[in-house]
């Protein structure tokens, strides 16, 4: 018995502060947030009663919230699609062997070092929707190049405007996805390729049956990382457009509700966002936990 305590005691003591702090500041506050979202704390006044899921039903009945979800959907599709396509393409090209690979790697990775707010300020100007005489940014470049037909309203466009907001996000994170894929490519032993070629596989078949299956864990991690960043997007939108209806996503709506002192509503949006992220992340965690077990 005493021996048992000696075994698990000191390590537990060592991690205890972390457990307590995470318990309070992460899980405790998630709990507090959920409990506010179930109350009628819609103003500065303290909550008076438990209202169950009323706040959630009210939110999903709101045209404005649905609109913010649609915006988030468009943004996520383009953001994930763009980063995955460009990230893979760059990694593939680098893997094929280029001179000065280090230079290209850095060039593609550098945008990641910039914060969303800083790049948002620049892209706010690049994505200015004025056309003709007052055009600036990208529209101006198109005009100078004689490509006037390419000038467009960018994010001011109703409907697909959010795809324009995804541009800077893709620009920033495609390099990161490239780095992930590149390490994936490098992790595939040369022997496997050689063996496939010996067996008479065409280049396409080599990729389809040898390389892609080896890359799928990397692709999954990239998808999860980019996906959860996309769901939380806030700073980029605040920097480019501020919080306006046209580019509203749940995270910016949450902020608007908070500044209007509607605590219950903002807690509700926060909980919904947490659930969205959990839907993406939890299956991944289960998958990796199983994979680790199998390896043991």
């Amino acid at each position, binding site marked *: 018995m005493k021996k048992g305590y000696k075994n698990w005691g000191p390590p537990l003591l060592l991690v205890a502060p972390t457990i307590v702090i995470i318990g309070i500041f992460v899980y405790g506050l998630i709990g507090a947030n959920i409990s506010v979202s179930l109350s009628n704390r819609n103003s500065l006044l303290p909550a008076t009663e438990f209202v169950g899921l009323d706040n959630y039903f009210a939110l999903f009945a709101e045209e404005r919230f649905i609109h913010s979800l649609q915006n988030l959907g468009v943004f996520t599709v383009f953001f994930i699609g763009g980063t995955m396509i460009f990230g893979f393409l760059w990694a593939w090209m680098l893997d094929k062997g280029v001179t000065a690979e280090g230079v290209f790697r850095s060039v593609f990775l550098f945008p990641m070092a910039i914060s969303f707010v800083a790049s948002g300020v620049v892209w706010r100007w690049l994505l200015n929707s004025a056309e003709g*005489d007052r055009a600036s940014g990208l529209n101006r470049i198109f005009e100078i190049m004689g490509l006037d037909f390419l000038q467009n309203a960018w994010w001011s466009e109703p409907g697909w405007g959010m795809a324009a907001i995804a541009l800077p996000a893709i620009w920033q994170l495609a390099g990161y996805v490239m780095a992930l894929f590149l390490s994936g490519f490098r992790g595939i032993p040369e022997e496997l390729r050689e063996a496939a070629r010996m067996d008479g596989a065409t280049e396409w078949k080599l990729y389809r049956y040898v390389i892609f299956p080896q890359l799928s864990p990397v692709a999954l991690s990239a998808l999860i990382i980019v996906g959860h960043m996309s769901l939380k997007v806030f700073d980029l939108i605040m920097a480019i457009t501020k919080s306006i209806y046209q580019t509203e996503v749940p995270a910016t709506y949450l902020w608007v509700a908070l500044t209007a002192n509607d605590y219950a509503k903002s807690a509700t949006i926060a909980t919904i966002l947490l659930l969205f992220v959990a839907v993406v992340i939890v299956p991944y965690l289960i998958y990796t936990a199983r994979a680790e077990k199998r390896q043991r």
Partner: protein
Amino acid sequence: MRKPLSIIAGAVALGLVLAGCSTTPSSDPDNANQVEVFTWWASGSEKVGLDALVKVFEEQNPDAEFINASVAGGAGSNAKAALASRLEANNPPDTFQAHAGAELTDYINAGQLQDLSSFFQENGLTDVFPESLIERITVDGAIYSVPSNIHRANVVWANTQVLTDAGIDPMTAPADIDAWLVDLKKLKDAGVETPLALGTEWTQMQLFENVLIADLGAEDYSGLWTGDTAWDSAGVETAIAHYGELLEYTNSDFAGLDWDAATQIVLDGNAAYNVMGDWAESAFQQAGWTYDNEYTTWATPGTDGVFDFLADSFTLSVGAPHEAAAIDWLTTISSAEGQKAFNLAKGSIPARTDTVASDYPAYQQTAIKSFGEDTVVSSLAHGAAASIAWSGDISSAIGKFGADRDAASLLDGLVAAADKAQG
């Protein structure tokens, strides 16, 4: 090896403790001479104005110690969040800045503000502030804040050169929105592509409220906020139609421009008009333009004789640790001397009607004159007319209209927002 490390660790810990008790004066409830004033005036002309105000305050109250609890950033949104958590923790500043009018509703309902009507009586403020202003800031017979500076939101800033070139007399304002639309068409036909400059969501809201005042008149407009005027009335529908027509004459990139970028279009001569609050004056001053020469202003067509006001004001918190000193601060703010010092620095006008107009620059003189004579109504875009949640809903409906131009959906949105707020 081990010892030096622990010494460094100890030194760092000590440093942290010392940093904790930093040198900025903190509020001490036992020191009756202190007054802690919470604002978001932390930079620019607002900071200069606050400093001028503090100087007058310290002259009038030599013993007083002013504690500046300003929170910078986000046009006050950071400050409001910080304030909310202080009020929540029952640790209120003695007095805090807030937009006068309906934006105070949440604090009033939460019982966080003291009634200042006796303060207004004792200092004779009910006589020197315009009656219609007092009416606007009175809630159920009580007044909860002291306005420090007044801005006007129904002003058209016009580029005289652009107008003269199109054969329009810049010095006479069109009589109403219809007449204005005729002029806008004339400008467009003369080759001015975007005669009316517009900016992001709140500037759209401000233009819309101007059209509402013009089409409904002061009384019915004020009724919108009390429930006396129905939102689904014919007048509101006309206003929406007018507003939609006005948008046809604006710059297409308005959703992405802040107000100063919109005003810049007028300065660049690419637009003739911009509807903006009178803080735009500083942009014209900086460009070196003179009033009634390169630029001129008039009340938005159809709103002549109406003063669409917004104001910063100061409150007295419930449970203020230094109540007497806070009242001294409010006295300074409302005094002729304090208001003059502050407003000359900030570029706004005093709330008092006994102001000597000749002390102020040309534009402010016109504003002071109108403020004394006109009917005062509350601005929607700046928190005077509707609670934060309500104006947020309206803002979102107007932002949607800016993208899809669906008049029926805007009307539905406005009616729904009013029902929710007045529910």
